[in-house]
């Protein structure tokens, strides 16, 4: 069964460093998302991406964040200069189409630890 994959599973970085989190969505999906979950808190929407552009972003998704689909298979989240509060689990998701009828499939997550 097709699934969303994410690499790495755990990333440790120093404050101020840039990190890139990678996701491979399900191959025929068109909509891509990033969510994050700070330990013990709720899963929060960061950004949605369709047709090579951001369709919506949350207040969390400030200028330090960017997303890209560089090669038609990967979907990346870049944090330019990490802060301690960026430590969280980051989930990638994809769906075939938009609208609640189309399930968002989630990856296993990348745990980001900023020291």
């Amino acid at each position, binding site marked *: 069964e097709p*699934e*969303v994959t994410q690499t790495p599973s755990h990333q440790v970085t120093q404050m101020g460093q840039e990190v890139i989190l990678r996701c491979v969505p399900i191959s025929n999906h068109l*909509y891509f*998302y990033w*969510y994050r979950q700070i330990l013990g*808190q*709720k*899963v*929060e*929407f960061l950004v*949605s991406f369709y047709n090579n552009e951001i*369709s*919506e972003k*949350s207040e969390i998704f400030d200028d330090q964040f960017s997303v890209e689909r560089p090669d038609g298979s990967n979907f990346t989240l870049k944090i330019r200069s990490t802060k301690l509060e960026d430590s969280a689990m980051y*989930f990638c998701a994809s*769906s075939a189409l*938009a*609208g*609640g*009828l*189309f*399930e*968002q499939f*989630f*990856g*296993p*997550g990348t745990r980001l630890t900023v020291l």
Partner: protein
Amino acid sequence: AQTVTQSQPEMSVQEAETVTLSCTYDTSENNYYLFWYKQPPSRQMILVIRQEAYKQQNATENRFSVNFQKAAKSFSLKISDSQLGDTAMYFCAFSVLDNTDKLIFGTGTRLQVFP
């Protein structure tokens, strides 16, 4: 703004018994979707069940059913004949019927099924 509240951080149930997880939400929208996602330990989130707000009939998927009370903005999940494999975090989520498609999650309920 839409919010989702799960007031039970942890629940436990004996194998073969029935358990109900609570979820309430707040929105001024009329067209939306509600979801229950399951996140087993160290695994990705998977969709358990989905409810369209315009449907009065409660959704059912095998041992999983919901009690959707639109006026009360309540969306509880009932798991019948609980199995050890049901042990997981359960997240209630909400999505407005528009092009953005973002999911708004509750804080989750950790369910432990005991033999």
